[in-house]
Each structure stands twice: as structure tokens, then as C-alpha cells.
């Protein structure tokens, strides 16, 4: 099977997204009055314009990927790890992508991140953050136990004290809610 360029995949995904939004997302996701006296008043006008632009960009990406391939421009390797350096984007050149191992580790990390919300819901922000901080440091291969435990307890505690005691923002404590108030 020929290699599929990343741009083509992205173009197809965007085209599918545009179609979904045009026929399902906007008609069913936006409440609009039966009769609108002026098109400018319609709540659907602006999202319609944005989706039309997105569809045009999707077509442009697909076309560019196909024409690029015919002209002999090699497809970009899918999932190439380094993004372009942009203003506001960070790429640390001292860090090296680990190939297939990197992909597997990233997937494990994503699963951990998916667990973040339930963990915070059950244990609250303070204890939940201690658990998450320790778990992520371990996943990042930190083996200096004193630093790991110190930061895992210290950082969430400082954040908790600042927001709860200084800024007077009530921090949910989950199972430890008996500590509240």
C-alpha cells in the first residue's frame, strides 16, 4: 500500500469534519428561529461561513497533497515528531524522539492523562494532584526519590495554599472533603 501523506490524511479528516458540521453539527447543534427577517440575524450565518472556509481549506489540502505527489514531492512521514517552530510553540532541541518506543510511551501517557479527570473528581484537587504528579514523574523516568516525593507533595500543596487560603477560591477535596472549611 502506498504511503499516505500526512497532508492528505489531514485534508480528508477536515473534509469529513466539514460535511459533518454542515449536515449534522450546525442544523442540530444551533437553535434558530423559524423565520429570520434578515440573514444577518441568523445564528447559523457565522458558523456556516466558517465551515464553508474549512471545507475550502480541506479541498486545498487534498489537492495540494495529490498534485505534490504527482510532481514527485515525497510524502511527509506520518507522525513526524518535530513540529515547525512557531511563535508561542516550544521545541526543545536537547530532547530526542525515541521512535517506536516513543509512540508507545506517548500512548501510555495519553491513557494516564485520560485518567486525570476521574482521579481529580474522586480524590479532589490536592490529593489528586499529588497522585498525578508522582505518577507522571515516574512515567517520565524520574528515579531520584527525594526530589520526586518532595515535588509531588510540595507543588500541589503550594498551589492549594495559594488558591484556597490567599485567593479564597474553594478547592474541591473529593474524598478528603472532611478537611474543608
Amino acid at each position, binding site marked *: 500500500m502506498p504511503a499516505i501523506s*500526512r497532508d492528505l490524511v489531514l485534508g480528508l479528516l*477536515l473534509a469529513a469534519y466539514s460535511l459533518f458540521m454542515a449536515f449534522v453539527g450546525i442544523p442540530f*447543534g*444551533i*437553535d*434558530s*428561529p423559524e423565520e429570520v427577517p*434578515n*440573514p*444577518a*440575524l441568523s*445564528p447559523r*450565518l*457565522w458558523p456556516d461561513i*466558517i465551515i464553508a*472556509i*474549512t471545507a475550502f*481549506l480541506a479541498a486545498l*489540502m487534498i489537492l495540494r497533497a495529490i498534485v505534490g505527489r504527482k510532481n514527485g514531492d515525497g510524502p511527509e512521514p506520518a507522525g513526524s515528531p518535530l*513540529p*515547525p*517552530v*512557531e*511563535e*508561542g*510553540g516550544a521545541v*526543545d*532541541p*536537547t*530532547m*530526542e*524522539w*525515541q521512535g517506536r*518506543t*516513543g509512540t508507545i*510511551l*506517548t500512548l501510555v*501517557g*495519553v491513557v494516564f*492523562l485520560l485518567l*486525570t*479527570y476521574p482521579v481529580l473528581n474522586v480524590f479532589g*484537587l490536592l490529593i489528586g494532584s499529588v497522585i*498525578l*504528579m508522582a505518577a*507522571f*514523574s515516574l512515567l517520565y523516568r*524520574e528515579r*531520584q526519590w527525594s526530589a*520526586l516525593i518532595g*515535588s509531588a507533595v510540595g*507543588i*500541589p500543596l503550594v*498551589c492549594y495554599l*495559594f488558591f484556597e487560603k*490567599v485567593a*479564597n*477560591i474553594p*478547592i*474541591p477535596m473529593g474524598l478528603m472533603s472532611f478537611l474543608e472549611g
Partner: protein
Amino acid sequence: MFEHLVAAFGLVATFETILALAVGVAVGVVLGAVPGMTATMAVGLSLPFTFLLQPVTGILLLLGVYKGGIYGGSIPAILIKTPGTPASSCTVLDGYPMAQKGQAGKALDMALYASCTADFISNLSLILFAAWLAQIALAFGPPEYFTLIVFSLTIIAGVAGDDLVKGCVSAALGLILATIGLDLIFGTDRFVFGTTSLMSGLNFIPVLIGLFALPEVIDYFGRKASARVKVSSVGGTHASWADYKRCLPTIIKSSFIGVLMGAIPGIGGAPSAFLAYSEARRTAKNRHEFGKGAIEGVAASEAGNNGVAGATMIPLLALGIPGDVITAVILGAFMIHGLQPGPVMFQNNLTMIYALFIGIMASSVLLFIIGKIGIRLFRRIADIPKSLMFPMVLVLCIFGSYAINNSMFDIAVMLATGFLGYFMLRFGIPAAPFLIAFILGPILENTFRQSLLMGGGDYTIFFRSTINWIFWALTVGSLVLIIYQTVIKRRPIPVG
């Protein structure tokens, strides 16, 4: 005017405000000096900590982080050949060779002096031009504002990286996300799906944090340190007054390049630094030393990137539109503190404007003091293990997202946009246009629909005034320039 100035001085000259500004500068320098962190991330992560502060104090803290962050990037650029922020990429060219020659202290000193001088010049230009521009903008109605924002969206091209189409895709995604909530005219639901938390739309802080900080946290899972980073010693050398005097013409010229580039939406610090550097090299007597450790090279690149900082605030304060992605974040911060920058602010809240001007000038002085005191301390920042830093960022993301509305829903939004941001990172879609479009989207839609209402649905309303035509011409001119540059970039370089 005088009473506003006195009142503004009273607002800034408090212990709380000066402390906030100093803390902001110090935090900015520290975070800017960590490779992999950016000034945008630094401002975003600091934003929730300003909620309890007065608006002036909070905004000045963030401006301190911004300025400190831009300077902080030069520290690892000189010491470990790794720019802390993209804007400091050019400083590596001469800063690191100087460090290898045992002159790291001298390079760091010159980076600080050039940064502070450029910052000061840039702030002066802000004070001189912002009020003048705001005066003109008072004549704008919704159609003029719409065309102005369309023009300002061409900054997306400047932050889109190498691929303009992907930059536009990113902006389109940001625009559609900004439509979530209640309709501006009818008050009907848009993409709310019965969720009460979505009725007021998505808050920009969880979106910002998710988009800029979380993808780095995810990306780090698959990476490891390529080699032990060798941090150069600061050594005993210092830049003398004679060194500064010798570099002053270069610093002033580079500062003005920075101001000019900063006032044009979307250019940013990195291109400005490279332009200032190449101009300094072109006119230098010792041009053969550039790239091998010329102190003028460090001065030019640092003055070039810091000269941008104040100037990017000109369109923000005068017109209410951001000049780059960091000022887009600061625009959001203004809104969170209940302020709307723009010409009306110059009419109704002049005290606030003067307070910001005074605070911004004070930030240059604080940058100098903090930079001078902390130079030896900051070199240790590059040693912070990433395996502890990124979990720390995650915890800050969690508390920061929650604190905005005391809502767990915002944490879910932050995580969701984080996953979206990582998807975008992997597909090479830049995040900056997304954020700019997300912030400008509601203003763009509002002015668009207001104009159409005024014109009875007639689209010619966008072409009726001279101001409209000027902005359309600027937009077209800017697009032609972008397309021309893209074509030039793609043209193969002839061999031989």
C-alpha cells in the same frame, strides 16, 4: 491630563504593584530560561495567579512575565546553545561562541543591557504612538472594526510557521470553537447540547493552557535527553561601560528595527532579532567576527527581540487587537479583569492607561535590577530535570484552569483542548492562529452582524467608507506579500 497622571502614579506606586511587577519579571526570566517553555506558556500559567489582584497590578504582573520571558530566553541560548524561547534563537549565533571563549558573563551582561535599553525605547514608542492611533480609531464604527479585525487576522500568517494553509485551518478551528454558547442576538443555544456550563461559551484560559502547555507534557512522554547538557561557566568577565558604549549605536538601531517589526501585527521577536542581527553585521567593521563570538552580535539580536515587546502593545492598547500571540493572551487577561482595551479606554479610563505606561517603564528598570542580581542564579535553571518540570506544569494547568470559574468543567475543557493541541502538533498545525482566532472570533462575528444589521443585510456596507478601503487594501497587500514570500521560500535554490 495632570490629574490622571497623578492618579495613575498613585495606582502604580504601591508596594503591592511594584512587588507584583518584580515577581512577574523574575518568574518570566526563570520560565523563559527553561528550554521547552515559552513566554506564552509563562504568561498563560501565571494568569490564574492574578485573579486576586487589582486589574492594574494583575496586568502589570503579566507584562513583567512577558518582558522577563523574552530576556530569559537568552540565558540558555548563551550558556547551553539552546534558546529558551524562539525569539532568542539568534542570540545563540554569537552568545554561545563567547561562552566557549570563557566570556559567558560578558555575553549575559550585554544581553541584559541591550534588552533593557531596547525595552525602554520600545516602551517610549508605545507611549508616543498608542494615544495618537487611538484618537484615529475613535472614528471607527462596526464596519470599520470588522475590516480592521480582518486585517489583523493576517497576523495568522506571521505565526503560522511554514504552512499558511495549516495556519488558516488552525484559525478556522479556533473560530468555530468561539461560537459555542448563546447567540449574541437571539440568545439561542449554539453547540450547547443542554450543558449549562457551555452556555457562556468556553473560557479562554483553559483553552490557552490546554493548547500551549499540555501538548508539551504529552510530547515529552516519547522523548529522552539526547545528551547531558553542558552548562558553560559564567566566569569572571563582565561587559564594561566601554563595551556598552561601543555597542550602543547597534543597540539603538536594532531597537528601532524591533519597534517597527513589533508594531506590524504578526512579525514577532525571532524575525526581528535576525533582521537586526543581519543589519548589524552588514554595517559592522568587524563583520568577520560575527558568528564567532562578536559582542555586537549579542547586542543586536537581544535589542532586536526585546524592541518588539512594547511595540506589540501599540495595536493592543490603541485598537484592542493583538499584535502577536502573547498580546492575544494579554488581551484575554484584560477581558478577565473586566477591561476592554481600545480607543474607548483612552477616553473613559485614561488613569488606567497612564498607570500601565508608568508600570511598563518601571518594568525595564526592574528587568535590569533582577537580571543583574540573578545572573549567576539563573544559569542553574537549565539544570532543572524535565521529569519533574512537566508534571509541575500539569499541576499548574489543573489549578489554573479550575480557579477561573471554580469549575471542574474547565479542567475537562483544558484536557480536551490539550488532546486537540497534541493532535495539531503531530499534524504540524500551529497552535498560535487557533488562539488568536478564538479570542478575536466573537469580536469579528459581532462587528460583522452589527454591520449587516446597519446595512439592512447589504454587504456593500463593508466598502462604503475610506477607512474600510484602506483596511481592505492593507489586507490584500499583506496577503500578496505572504503568498509572494511562500512562493520564494518554495523555489528550489540553484546548485553551483
